[in-house]
C-alpha cells in the first residue's frame, strides 16, 4: 500500500505537470492574444498599476475587439529590473503564446526587451513607456515598435526656454543613475549647451536615495539653476534637504520630477520656490484641448480609484494599445505570414491620440508632440502645470540629421558634457 500511495503521488505530480505543458498551446483561431507587461511589484508598483489602467481603457473602449477578432489580454508583472521583465516576457511569449506584447515600463527593461525581441521574431513587441534612447536608436529590433517618445524627446524645448526666457546661463544636474535620466539629461543639455549655457557639474544618485547632504554641499554658488531629474519622492527628499541647507537656486524639472508627490508637498517646499519651475514631457495635465480632456474624462469615469488625472504611464500604454487596435483593424486581424502585414500597417500608421498625431520613423520610433510647461499658481491658490508651448512633431534625433545625431555617441554619465 505504501508503494501504491507513492506511485499515486508521483502519477499525480506527472499529470499536473503534463496538464500544464498542454495548457499553453490551446488557442482559438479567432482570438488574438495580447500580453501586457508593467511593474506591478517593487518601487514602481503605483506607476505600473496606472499603466495597466491606460491599456485597459483602450481595450475597453474597443470592446476587446479589433479587426473582427476577439482580444484576449494576459497580464505580466516585473519589478523594474531587466531580469524580472525578461522572466515575465518569457512566460507571456513562450508559455501563454501571446501574438503581441505591450510593455515594458522602465528604461533598462526596454533595452533588455529589445534584445529579447530579436530572439522571438514571431511576436510583435509594442513598447509601453520605457524611454531609454538606445532601445530604438542604435541596433533596433525589427519587431519592436515604440509609439511613445523617448527621454531625450521629452525634454524638447526645455533647454532653450530655460536659457532664453528664464535667463539661466549655467545649471548643475542632479539625476538618478540609470539609462532613463541619462536620456533626459541629454535632451536638456543638447539645447541648453547649444544656446551657450554651461553645465559645470553633474551629480548621479541611486534610485531611492535618502541622504543628499554631500550633494547639496557641493552645489557651486555661481550657477543660475539646478536641473533635477529625480522621480517624485526622491525629488521631494532632495528639495527639502536643499532648502534646509539654505539653497535657493531655481529648479528646472525633468519629465517625471514635478509630479503629484511634489505638488502635494507644495506647502513644505514653498509655493514661491516651486512656482516658475519649467519642465517638459509627453503630456500636460492642464492642457486645454478637447481630445485630451475627453481622454482624462474617460479615464476618470473608468477608474474612480485611479489618479486624479492619467499619468504619462497610463498615457503611454493607452497609445501603445491604441496602436495595436488600429493596426489590427487595418489588416482585418490578419497576423499570418509572420505578422508582416500587421507590421507594415503599424509602420504606416498615422495615429490620432489624446496628445496629437503620432507616426513612426524608419527605426519604428514615435514622432510626436511634446509639451513645455511651467508651474504656476492657479486662481484657487494651488500649483498647476501650465502649458507654455506645444513643440510639434519632435523626432528622435531632435531635428538633427540622423548621422550627425549618432555621432554624439550613446548617452552615459559623462556624455554629453559642456562645463
Amino acid at each position, binding site marked *: 500500500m505504501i508503494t501504491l500511495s507513492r506511485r499515486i503521488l508521483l502519477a499525480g505530480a506527472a499529470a499536473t505537470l503534463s496538464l500544464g505543458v498542454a495548457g*499553453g498551446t490551446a488557442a482559438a483561431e479567432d482570438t488574438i492574444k495580447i500580453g501586457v507587461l508593467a511593474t506591478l511589484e517593487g518601487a514602481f508598483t503605483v506607476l505600473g498599476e496606472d499603466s495597466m489602467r491606460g491599456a485597459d481603457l483602450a481595450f475597453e473602449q474597443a470592446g476587446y475587439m479589433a479587426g473582427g477578432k476577439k482580444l484576449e489580454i494576459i497580464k505580466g508583472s516585473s519589478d523594474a529590473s531587466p531580469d524580472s521583465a525578461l522572466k515575465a516576457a518569457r512566460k507571456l511569449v513562450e508559455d501563454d503564446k501571446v501574438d503581441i506584447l505591450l510593455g515594458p515600463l522602465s528604461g533598462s527593461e526596454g533595452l533588455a526587451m529589445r534584445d529579447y525581441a530579436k530572439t522571438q521574431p514571431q511576436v510583435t513587441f509594442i513598447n509601453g513607456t520605457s524611454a531609454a534612447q538606445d532601445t530604438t536608436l542604435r541596433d533596433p529590433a525589427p519587431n519592436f515598435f515604440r509609439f511613445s517618445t523617448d527621454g531625450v524627446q521629452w525634454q524638447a524645448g526645455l533647454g532653450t526656454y530655460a536659457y532664453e526666457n528664464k535667463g539661466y546661463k549655467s545649471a548643475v544636474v542632479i539625476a538618478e543613475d540609470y539609462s532613463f535620466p541619462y536620456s533626459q539629461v541629454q535632451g536638456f543639455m543638447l539645447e541648453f549647451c547649444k544656446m551657450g549655457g554651461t553645465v559645470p557639474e553633474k551629480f548621479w544618485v541611486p534610485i531611492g536615495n535618502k541622504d543628499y547632504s554631500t550633494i547639496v554641499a557641493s552645489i557651486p554658488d555661481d550657477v543660475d539653476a539646478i536641473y533635477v531629474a529625480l522621480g517624485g519622492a526622491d525629488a521631494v527628499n532632495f528639495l527639502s534637504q536643499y532648502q534646509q541647507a539654505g539653497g535657493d537656486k531655481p529648479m528646472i524639472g525633468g519629465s517625471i520630477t514635478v509630479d503629484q508627490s511634489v505638488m502635494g508637498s507644495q506647502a513644505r517646499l514653498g509655493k514661491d520656490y516651486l512656482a516658475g519651475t519649467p519642465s517638459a514631457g509627453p503630456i500636460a495635465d492642464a492642457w486645454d484641448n478637447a481630445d485630451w480632456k475627453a481622454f482624462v474624462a474617460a479615464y476618470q469615469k473608468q477608474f474612480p480609484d485611479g489618479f486624479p488625472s492619467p499619468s504619462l504611464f497610463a498615457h503611454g500604454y493607452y497609445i501603445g494599445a491604441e496602436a495595436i487596435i488600429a493596426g489590427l483593424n487595418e489588416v482585418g486581424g490578419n497576423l499570418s505570414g509572420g505578422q508582416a502585414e500587421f507590421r507594415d500597417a503599424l509602420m504606416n500608421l498615422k495615429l490620432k491620440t489624446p496628445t496629437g498625431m503620432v507616426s513612426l520613423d524608419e527605426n519604428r520610433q514615435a514622432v510626436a508632440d511634446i509639451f513645455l510647461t511651467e508651474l504656476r499658481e492657479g486662481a484657487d491658490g494651488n500649483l498647476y502645470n501650465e502649458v507654455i508651448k506645444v513643440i510639434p512633431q519632435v523626432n528622435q534625433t531632435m531635428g538633427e540629421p540622423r548621422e550627425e545625431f549618432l555621432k554624439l555617441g550613446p548617452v552615459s554619465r559623462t556624455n554629453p558634457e559642456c562645463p
Partner: protein
Amino acid sequence: MVAVSDKLDEKKAWSPWPLTRNGGILLLLILYPFIASPFWIVQVGAQTFFLGLVALSLMLLAGLGGMVSLAQLTIAGVAGYMWAIFGESTAPISLHLPWYLVLPIALAIAVIFATLIGAISVRTEGIYTIMITLAIGVGFANFANQNYAILNGFNGFAGLSPPPIFGVDWREPMPFYYLALGIAGLAYFGVVYFRRSTFGLSLQAIRDNPRRMETLGFHVALHRILAYALAGFIAALGGIFIVWFNGRISPGSIGLGPMIDILVIAVLGGLRHPIGPFIGALVFVLLDNFAIDLIDRERFNTVIGAAFLLVVLVSPDGLLGLWDRLKRALAKGRDESGNDGFQP
C-alpha cells in the same frame, strides 16, 4: 536550523524500491524535454536546476555545517560578473578572453570570494552569521550599483551567452536543459557523497557540537572555511548558469530580493537532504511563474508568501519534512490495518 540526522534512512532494510524510484525519476528527467514546450524546458526545468544549485550550496552550509549564509547568491553573482568581465558582452569593459580561460577564472575568483566570506563569518554563530553574510551580500550589490570602472554600475552587462562548445548552441532549450541537468546531477551526487566522507562527517559533528570537536583536536574554523569554499564552488556553477539564462547581469540580479529567494528555496525544500533545494526550487519556480494566473494580478505575491508560510508553519523541515511525515503516517496506517487482507 540544525537538521535531524539520517537515522531513518539507515534503519531501513535494503529494498529494491529506492532504486526503482530513483531510476524512474531519472528517466522522467531525461525524457522530460521530449514532452514539454521550450518554456517548460528552460524557464521551469533548467531554472529549477540552477536555482537548485545555488540553494544546494546553502543546504551544504546550513544543513551540514549549521551556518546559514545569505551570501550564496552573491557568490553566484561574482561568478556571473566575472564571466561577463573576462568574457564576451556588449559592454566595452569586457576582455573577450576565450571561454576555456574565462570559466576557470570566474569559478576561481568566486571560490576565493566565498572563502573570504567564510573566513570573516566563521567565528560567528546563528543570527550573527546571517547578519554578516546579509551585510556582505547587500554591500556587494550596492557596490556593483555604483562601481562603473569594473562592474559597469546600474546597467551591468548584457549580451552574455554560453560558449559554442562542440558546435552546439547551448542556449537552445534541449542542450541548455541537459547541461543544467548534468551539472546539477553531478553537484547533487557530489553532496550526497560528501555527507558520508570523512570531511563531511566531521563537518556535521562540528555542527552538532563544535566545542567537543575542538577538544578532540579538529580545527573547527578550518573545516568551516573549507565548507564555505566548497559551497562557493557549487554556487558559482549556479551563477554561471544564471547569467547564461538571463543573458545579462546587473545589480538588480544580486540584490536583496533574489538573495532572500535562495533562502526561501532552501527552506521550502528542506535542508536535511541534498534533494531538498531542488524540490524547493521547482515549487518556487512554479509559484513564481504561475501565481499570477491564479489570482488578481496585483496580489499574486501574496500567494507566493502564503504558500511559503504554510509550508514552514506546517513543517519546520520544509517539503522534505512533510514528505517524511506523510510516509510515517502511511506506514502507521499500514500497521494498524495490517490484517484486513491487503498486502503492501
